[in-house]
């Protein structure tokens, strides 16, 4: 009896591991930044390079930091969702135009709509590096104290928005 059960158990365990591995996104590296203070920076606004933005200005409110670029394909996929979110006016969305030419970034927003409360230009990607950005788009949920609570690598979709990000935003706003 054992002779049949043992291989079966081994097979099931292996199959279980492999099945779990199938569904995993290898790009999804757990970010060490979650639970830590959002790195400080000062960057010019995309639409007005004379004005500057720093995360301290958002102190006291929950906000989203959405890293995007005009050259980024997946950003176009999540764009309608951001537009929708911005119309609902639930949470301020700060856009970080990552490693992009200011003209290109501005043109993209003019053409397809601007979902952002404000957009900052990270032309050389230095701030992106500090935030551990390696795949655009990425979205950060930052709480009232300026702590990063969640980081999404890759595009927003209705699933991760409805199941993860919006409930988290509501929970943080209630605090």
């Amino acid at each position, binding site marked *: 009896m054992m002779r049949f059960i043992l291989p079966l158990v081994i097979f099931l365990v292996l199959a279980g591991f492999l099945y779990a591995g199938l569904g995993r996104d*290898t*790009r999804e*590296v*757990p*970010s*060490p*930044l979650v639970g830590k203070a959002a790195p400080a920076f000062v960057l010019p606004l995309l639409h007005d390079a004379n004005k500057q933005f720093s995360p301290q200005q958002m102190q006291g409110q929950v906000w989203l930091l959405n890293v995007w670029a005009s050259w980024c394909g997946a950003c176009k996929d999540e764009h309608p969702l951001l537009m929708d979110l911005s119309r609902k006016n639930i949470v301020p969305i700060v856009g970080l135009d990552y*490693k992009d030419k200011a003209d290109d970034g501005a043109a993209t927003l003019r053409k397809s709509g601007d979902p952002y409360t404000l957009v900052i230009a990270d032309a050389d*990607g230095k701030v992106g*590096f*500090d*935030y*551990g950005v*390696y*795949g655009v788009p990425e979205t950060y949920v930052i709480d009232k104290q300026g702590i990063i609570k969640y980081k999404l690598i890759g595009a927003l979709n209705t699933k991760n928005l409805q199941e993860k990000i919006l409930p988290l935003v509501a929970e943080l706003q209630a605090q």
Partner: protein
Amino acid sequence: MKYLLMIALLLPAFAFAGVAKDMADDPVMERRMMHLAEKVRCLVCQSEPVSNSHSDWANDVRQIMREKMTAGASDQEILDILVERFGKSVLFDPPVDKETIPLWSAPFVLLFVGSGILVYQLRKRKGLLVEAQLSAQDEQRVAELLNENPASSPATVTSNQAKDSQA
């Protein structure tokens, strides 16, 4: 016309030569940087080190390494900066700690479990061995078989030897 075409085909090579050089001015530092970059995983290409990758992200990381080195950072400080931002999985050789202990101990656990199963199976098999009970008839047959044609056996050996030496 043929020459013109040949020259035209060479033109892209010149265009490439015009691209900004992606190197530190100091060759010693460049070597140090590349050596360090071998230890860092390229996150956008997974199993490749940053030193080998041409991806944009790897280029950026190498550039940042150069800048930090110019600023006087030690190798360990640079690795710490990367781990702080991208997590321990950015290192090919992650440090042993609470989080990575399952990873590091897995081979030993597997070895232990495997040898346990092996020993268990061998013991069980040993227990299954039973000294065969031979009847008197069997004993007699064994004796007959062992003593069968005592003269023919050496002959067979000789013929085998002959074959061997031929070969």
